[in-house]
């Protein structure tokens, strides 16, 4: 299972983004400034829009999914319960996971944006996809829900998961780190080696590296463990 990007380039009116690299099974984190082209690249990798030039080869990807930043774009059910069923999932299980049992009969569009995001992520992360592209999965979530989302994502055992985010405070376990800099996608490599060259590293990670306490990965636990190292 892999995706090869071969000199892929997407050109819009006032900017462009280019990408070359290979995504294999595991969790990939792509960071970049707002406006750097993350969402555009996400759509290209998910096969929703063609690149302006270059080629994308997908091997053994039969079941792809992209989660858009605004969860309401995915809503088709007239109730929260129906929305869970529309994903082919058992509403009882999902509503319990998302702590939304009392809201089963409400329209999904009446949930707060944080609740809707929670519901959407619970549905998407319960499925097995060969390719799962998450565009800003942590937006609209509070700290507690971000932590929960990170734990669930970290537990994904199969398939290619690609997370596009500018998040700085909470991360799941990541296998490969990428970032968009100056209109180009760069692969920084596996963790923890990738942390040294990661330009979008959060301040706490930089501080730990400066002190010679490189975390093994990006989860809160890893960072805590690195900080406590003597």
């Amino acid at each position, binding site marked *: 299972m892999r995706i090869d990007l071969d000199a892929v380039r997407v050109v819009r009116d006032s900017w462009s983004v280019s990408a070359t690299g290979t995504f294999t099974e595991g969790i990939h984190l792509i960071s970049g*400034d707002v*406006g750097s082209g993350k969402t555009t690249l996400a759509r290209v990798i998910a096969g929703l829009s063609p690149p302006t030039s270059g080629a994308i080869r997908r091997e053994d990807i039969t079941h792809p999914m992209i989660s858009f930043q605004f969860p309401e774009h995915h809503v088709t059910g007239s109730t929260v319960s129906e929305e869970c069923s529309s994903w082919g999932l058992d509403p009882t299980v999902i509503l319990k996971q998302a702590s939304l049992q009392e809201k089963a009969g409400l329209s999904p569009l009446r949930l*707060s944006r944080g609740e809707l995001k929670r519901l959407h992520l619970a549905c998407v992360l319960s499925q097995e996809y060969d390719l799962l592209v998450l565009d800003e999965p942590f937006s*609209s979530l*509070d700290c*507690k829900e971000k932590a929960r989302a990170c734990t669930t994502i970290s537990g994904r055992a199969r398939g290619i998961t690609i997370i596009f985010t*500018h998040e700085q405070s909470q991360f799941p376990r990541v296998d490969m780190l990428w970032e968009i800099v100056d209109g180009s996608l760069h692969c920084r490599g596996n963790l923890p080696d990738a942390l040294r060259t990661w330009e979008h590293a959060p301040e*706490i990670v930089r*501080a730990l590296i400066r002190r010679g306490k490189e975390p093994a990965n990006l989860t809160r636990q890893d960072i805590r463990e690195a900080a406590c190292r003597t």
Partner: protein
Amino acid sequence: MIELSGIRHTILDISALRIPFGTTSVIGPNGSGKTMLLKLLAGIFLPHSGTVRIDGVPPRKTETGWVNEFPDRNILFGTVIDEVASSLRFRHLPDRDVKITVEKLLDSMGISPLRGRPVCDLSGGEKVLVALAAALVHTPRVLVLDECDSHLDNYRARQVERIVQERAIPYVIRCTQQVESAIRSDHVIYLENGRVAYEGVPGEVFARLHGTPFYPLTMECGI
């Protein structure tokens, strides 16, 4: 001083709250009433009961600036100039004065290159800067920022903080999920289920939040 007294409004139940000069961060879980509190402080809503006073004056009689979370919803007009000038134009100020004030502000914020551009062509971060300029142009006494940093990368978030600090606005109330940035505030309010669970200087509030996801990782790691 901002004083809230006997507030009952939808989920909010605040018997007494005093917010001093400076930057106050409002944190808490989704659905705890943060946005509603901010809207009461901005005068967007009047509380069902209780009073809100900003130096003894109701919010609707105070100059307020407002920036909310979603860039697309922050924008009224199609061009950067029209957007930033909007509050001055709504006050029917002479066009020449409006032009001078807007140009000066865009210069001071370092976003003059954006002036002629349509807002729909801007990135999310640039839209937030434009919305911030529109909020600052009439020199507000209270600046309310509702999670506007949630769609900003670190660089832009720091840029917004710097710009706001340079303007020396008496009261800056910001709602944020970036608890690491809340450490830098003068005052922190933690809301839970519509009530003020904790409030005070950052050190005091975060000490009470130890062991929760709202406890800053930098404090946990002693950095």
